[in-house]
């Protein structure tokens, strides 16, 4: 039975360490596996490791599953785990972050290993599902002991176009950006619900084409589907929209680092350094209107940078800032800008769900309290090229979205909220350099706290400070939006991953 689906982007490579990006990892997760797996609800369950336990705060022991074979017939052993971890740390790999969470791996026997972490890390296993295990012999045989580098020579890399994993599906053919065909691995070690024998994946860039292909019955599933098309899907015969909250939070950031705001008519000072100005901004935004009109009721307006699916989520802080234009005007006047000021909002226009539309709405809402926003909406490559560290954070006001890779709030804090610190590799995505030493302290502590309750309390405290400071303007959690034919049942995972293990074709 064949399952055909389309996604907006493409599978750029088959090398499991080449790119740390959710679609690539989600798709290769059907071919390769880590020591742990996600279950349908994104909970961690044993994968290639049968079980694990913490020996000391910094050492973990993993019992590896026996009798697992790679697609090529090789046995899965401890050597493969060590090899894969090392490979993830070599040049060309984009999994160095995950590699660096582990200081060393010692082989106890063929099916037992001990991992040592540089510091106590209570959530180590959270990062294991996407640290894929390759076969050592196969890799060495084909000379692909390090990941495919773009700076390399013309020879290419075997793992880039071939795969040999332990997962439930094998690659049958793969033409980058054109089509990939996967077939069922009959020797898979685990019982899984799917009855699919072949999966055909085609990237379809244009949303209308994607939707048309679904409605016309050519495909069984497409994603993402523009939110405004849900109604149409539900009205069409044989297809429906499958929606749910994604773990991605969309928010707007302010430049609070510079002494003079870029792209503004205010010279010599930076209004965003004033908490009242930031507060005025957040109170000017009608999140419900954005939800209703732009997201067709599907987003979850939020007051927090971490979504409910994320470990450390604080329910009580999640309510958005109130929509109150009068208060906003008053705050602006109080801060010395009764007539508002001008600022440029940087916005991607092909990255997040209706990103440009959100920015436009924000622009017009701010106009109503007197702030004149120039909107610079650009495709993601130009946008990120401008706002990220490589260009020196060339922005004063920007829209961004974030899904913590580890599904833990610590990632949010250390990426988005702590002060920018290039040496410590912290706060890299804190583009506006919101900086509160108290939060930095807390984040450091959270990083090595193994007591979950204490840890969560500290997370809550940090988030509370950010919220009071109005460090960011959270917008919403964006919705997952899939279009599915009645012919199939799929599981929609909160990180937008499609796990073929749970795809069932109904007859």
């Amino acid at each position: 039975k064949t399952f055909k689906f389309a996604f907006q982007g493409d599978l750029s490579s088959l090398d499991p360490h080449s790119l740390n990006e959710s679609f690539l990892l989600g798709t290769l997760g059907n071919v390769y596996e880590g020591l742990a797996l996600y279950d349908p609800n994104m909970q961690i369950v044993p994968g290639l490791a049968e079980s694990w336990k913490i020996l000391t705060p910094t050492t973990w022991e993993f019992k590896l599953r026996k009798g697992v074979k790679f697609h090529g017939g090789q046995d899965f052993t401890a050597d493969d785990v060590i090899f894969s971890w090392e490979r993830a740390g070599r040049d060309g790999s984009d999994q160095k972050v995950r590699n660096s969470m582990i200081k060393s791996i010692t082989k106890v026997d063929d099916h037992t290993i001990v991992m040592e972490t540089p510091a106590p890390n209570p959530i180590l296993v959270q990062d294991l599902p996407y640290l894929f295990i390759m076969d050592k012999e196969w890799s060495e045989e084909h000379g692909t002991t390090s990941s495919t580098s773009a700076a390399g020579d013309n020879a290419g890399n075997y793992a880039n176009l071939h795969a040999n994993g332990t997962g439930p599906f094998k690659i049958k053919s793969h033409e980058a950006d054109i089509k990939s065909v996967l077939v069922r691995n009959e020797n898979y070690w685990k019982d899984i619900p799917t009855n699919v024998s072949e999966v055909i994946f085609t990237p379809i860039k244009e949303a209308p084409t994607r939707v048309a292909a679904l409605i016309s019955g050519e495909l069984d599933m497409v994603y993402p589907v523009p939110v405004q098309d849900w109604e149409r899907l539900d009205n069409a015969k044989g297809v429906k929209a499958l929606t749910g909250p994604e773990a991605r939070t969309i928010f707007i950031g302010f430049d609070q680092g510079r002494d003079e705001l870029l792209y503004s008519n205010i010279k010599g000072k930076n209004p965003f350094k004033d908490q009242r100005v930031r507060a005025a901004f957040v109170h000017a935004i009608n999140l419900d209107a954005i939800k209703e009109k732009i997201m067709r009721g599907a987003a979850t307006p939020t007051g927090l940078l971490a979504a409910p699916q994320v470990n450390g989520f604080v329910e009580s802080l999640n309510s958005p800032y109130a929509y109150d234009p009068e208060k906003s005007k008053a705050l602006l006047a109080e801060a010395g800008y009764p007539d508002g000021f001008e600022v440029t909002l940087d916005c991607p226009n092909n990255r997040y769900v209706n990103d440009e539309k959100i920015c436009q709405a924000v622009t017009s809402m701010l106009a109503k309290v007197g702030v004149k926003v120039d909107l610079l909406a650009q495709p993601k490559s130009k946008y990120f090229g401008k706002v990220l560290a490589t260009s020196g954070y060339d922005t004063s006001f920007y829209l961004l979205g974030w899904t913590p890779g580890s599904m833990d709030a610590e990632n949010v804090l250390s990426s988005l909220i702590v002060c920018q610190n290039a040496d410590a590799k912290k706060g890299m995505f804190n583009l506006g350099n919101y900086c509160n030493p108290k939060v930095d302290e807390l984040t450091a502590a959270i990083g090595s706290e193994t007591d979950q309750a204490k840890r969560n309390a500290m997370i809550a405290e940090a988030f509370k400070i950010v919220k009071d400071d109005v460090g960011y303007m959270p917008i919403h959690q964006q919705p997952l939006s899939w279009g599915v034919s009645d012919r199939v049942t799929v599981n929609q995972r909160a990180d937008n991953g499609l796990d073929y293990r749970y795809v069932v074709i109904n007859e």
Partner: protein
Amino acid sequence: MISFIFKRLVQSVIVMLTVALIAFSMFRFIGDPINNMVGQDTSQADRAALTEQLGLNDPFLVQFGRFALNAAEGNFGISYKYRQPVSSLILERLSATLELSLVAAILTLVVGIPLGVYTALKGKGLLSKGIMTLSLIGVSLPTFLIGILLILFFGVMLRWLPTFGRGDVVALGWWTTGFLTLSGIKSLILPSITLALFQMTLIMRLVRAEMLEVLRTDFIKFARARGLPDRSVHFKHALKNTLVPVITITGLQLGALIAFAIITESVFQWPGMGLLFIQAISDVDIPIMAAYLVLIAFFFVVINMIVDILYYAVDPRLRADSSV
């Protein structure tokens, strides 16, 4: 003639080098490739290292020089995104694009020229006025809209034709063809119509305008005075005399079809070079863009050379000029 072709080929090398040079000076305005090559969690240091490794910090002349030297050895580098040799990526898509442009070009000429002649002759007729108007609607609506409307109508409502892709293809060596399977042929219909619509209008109107002038010349009058049948007067004598601008434009449009059928290829998810290229622009995949632009430059030089040769074939008056 041989020396003419040789001269052109020499010039084409210069053209391609210039294109590469301009391309390299332009890349930094397109965006930063690094962000598309790494995940969001990748550290700043790793990003910087990657930038350094790719040589993106070098002055663009150095980057250009490196590219030119490698290209001279037939090495166009490795795609940042796909990490495969650029040449094989482009080659993989070449057949899709060429087949699509070929069909569109044939459609354009086979429909456009006769309609142009018809509307020139029957300018006052209702049918010809209708054709003229309809064709203009075809050009004034954006390609993406036309594509989507066609998909909606033929793909979704009637379900006659596929909505995306190339259908099943048959591989003949490195060339893949969709001409040999039913689904391949069906898949060609909508994109080629979408692509041809604009060209058709242009050619049709061009032929019409030129025909109107030629039909008033003395030699057409004399041809009529000799009693030649209309078919011969119109197609043999009049049409041939309109060909110089038509060939020019056809050549240019064919080049544009091959090179930049971007929107059509995106709308129909046609796995061709245009799609690869637009994707490369949005991913700032510099090796693909550079190699592609150079290839396109070569295409255009060749197409325009053929056009220039055709001038001489079509118009003997130009021949005498060149040969002495």
